């Protein structure tokens, strides 16, 4: 048996290299290849969130590893597992109260930033028995998902895509403040079409079509201490933490990451031609040389 770390490192390396658009099927493949690392892999690699429906509350919610019990997922709206599960854990009553408040707050956040989509927040206790009044330590995850599907009346040029974000955090209350450790992952896919426009001038009679797919996933971490006067104070604290991180990651993706791929295209191929600058000179020298040489 070779070095276990090496095998796991190889699995993660593949995840970093293979296309983010195929992360789900690739992770399944990797789990089949190395079943002994399946749990570690699923715990370390974020995947697109499952869109589920809580029919009792008539609302959609999101599923991930953190609210899953076997094949059931806990709904943040009804606090029940769907389909029903007797073994799945639920948060302690006072944590559930905070969870309910966070779900309401992030539902507003979702509407303001995503103008659609679905959000869910799940919390879980980090201590077996949290006494009332004692400093709490807990963990949670804030999930956001938005999918742009091609609409039937505008099939030509409307871009399609999806955004999935997971913000996993741990919180430790310390007197009149709390420490939050955050690990955020954004997974993004955007696709649009290229059209006959590409065949425009100079290439009359030509026709063409194609697609452009930009996809990415990135993970960032942050750790902060925020003042905390009351339990309800966790809501604005976690809210600000997640909001700042999402803004930062969105900017990184749009400017740094996508900008970089654009730069690479222009590195690969020179639009104006590598000799464009000196073309006139070359032509002139060429003619002069030729005429001179020919007497």
């Amino acid at each position, binding site marked *: 048996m070779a070095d276990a770390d090496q095998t796991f490192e190889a699995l993660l390396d593949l995840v970093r290299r293979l296309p983010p658009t195929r992360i789900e099927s690739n992770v399944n493949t990797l789990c089949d290849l190395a079943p002994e690392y399946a749990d570690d892999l699923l715990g370390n690699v974020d995947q697109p969130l499952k869109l589920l429906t809580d029919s009792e509350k008539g609302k959609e919610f999101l599923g991930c590893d953190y609210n899953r019990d076997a094949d059931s997922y806990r709904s943040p709206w009804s606090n029940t597992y769907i389909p029903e599960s007797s073994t799945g854990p639920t948060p302690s009553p006072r944590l559930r109260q905070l969870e309910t408040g966070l779900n309401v707050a992030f539902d507003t956040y979702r509407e303001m*930033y995503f103008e659609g989509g679905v959000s869910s927040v799940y919390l879980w206790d980090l201590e077996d028995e949290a006494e009332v009044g004692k400093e709490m330590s807990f963990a949670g995850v804030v999930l956001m998902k938005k999918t742009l599907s091609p609409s039937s009346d505008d099939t030509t040029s409307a871009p399609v895509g999806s955004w999935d974000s997971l913000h996993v955090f741990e919180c430790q209350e310390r007197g009149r403040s709390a420490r939050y450790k955050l690990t955020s992952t954004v997974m993004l896919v955007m696709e649009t079409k290229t059209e006959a426009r590409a065949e425009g001038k100079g290439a009359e009679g030509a026709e063409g079509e194609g697609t452009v797919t930009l996809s990415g996933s990135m993970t960032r971490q942050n750790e902060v201490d925020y003042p905390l006067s009351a339990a309800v104070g966790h809501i604005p604290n976690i809210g600000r933490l997640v909001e700042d991180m999402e803004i930062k990651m969105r900017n990184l993706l749009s400017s740094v990451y996508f900008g970089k791929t654009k730069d*690479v295209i222009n590195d690969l191929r020179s*639009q104006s031609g590598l000799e464009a600058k000196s073309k006139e000179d070359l032509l002139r020298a060429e003619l002069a040389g030729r005429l001179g040489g020919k007497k």
Partner: protein
Amino acid sequence: MSELSVEDKSKLATRLIEQTPPGEINDVVNDIRSIIEDDNALMPHVIPALRDYNLAQLQVVDHQLSESTPAHSSLLSSAAILPGSEAGNERYVDAEGKRSFAFDHVTLTASDYQPYELPEEEETFRAELAKSLAAYTKNHFQSGFSSVTTSQFPLLPPTPPAPAPPLTTTTEPTATEDDPPAEPIITDVIEEKVGTGEVEPSPTPAVDDVVAKKEEVDEEGGLEKVDELVEEAKEEEEREEAGAEIEKEGRPVVEEDTLVAGKEVPVEEPTDVTTNDEVEPEKAVEEVAPAVQVEERKQERVENPIYTLEIVGNKYNPNNFWTGRWRTRWIVDKSAGTVSGDIKVDVHYYEQGNVQLATRHTSSFPVPTESVESQSIASQIVTTISKIETNYHLELNDVYGELGDKAFRALRRALPVTRQKMDWEKVSGYSLGSDLTKARA
């Protein structure tokens, strides 16, 4: 669920290979090897996957300097498979070097070179396309490689080819002028042949050429044309110089070798080949290959061969965590009257993340039917390809704006409509406040 056998795992793992981003095939294969930990079981499955990957990704094959060819490169692709070579013993065509070769898809090395000789008609058109495509590639791709292949069957392998005769045996300066004018003036090729003979190169065409086309500089899309012209003109001049001072130049001699090889064509040409009998081969035949045994094998031939033009531009910068590849494939189908192509761009940026761009674009245009203003059909084809690719390149740059503005905002706004961050204290906090405060107290 029971665990898969090593055999099944190996099969499964190799399916990941085709997804490999540009320039990272070694990393991916080594990762897979670390996971499977059984090279003996794995490699038999990896090799066919690598073969498919190399062909799809237009793997560049470097060919060393040899007696008859300068160092150059060719591209692997499905179009470069030697017609008739069998699966398992697949051979590839190095059309520029007029050779076929076996290829090791793991070590990426070529071996077992054999002569590859096309009928003259196909080789002439192919070579013209190749010359124009190389000029376009050189001008637009910093690290670009191109090759042109045809589906025409090569001539049957000659009997051990006579050692390349010295230059002086080629003394049919007028031969090419008798070429059937089916292909309107292909300046490169004809000039080349004329220039290497004893006849003084006719002085006017090239200059007229350039002057005539210079006027187009101001037109839309004129830049590429000029670029090509400049390129062609330069090469022409080099050749003319070479014709005059042949001993001093290494390269023209090599070209001459390939030309001479071309002259051998009629030797092996079976009677059902109906082209170019004006090439007055008799003398050359006697000199070059006096004792050709007519072989029983039948020369195979397709009536309307297709020509495949391929370009690959690669840039790998693993130190800065990015790699990229631009692939182009254009197929000239004269019988269908179309040139159809696809362009693929793949970029991977993986510094603290994994961001990938994948573009696919197909396009087609009619095959030009006659030379225009002394621009040959081959040259027109490449000019149109150049324009389409440049337009596509422009559109790609625009797409970023569209994706960045429209799509990204439609997914998630940079800021809410209010242009302010959330007021978290206000949002729901106080409505719950009393309860939670009580719970905490």
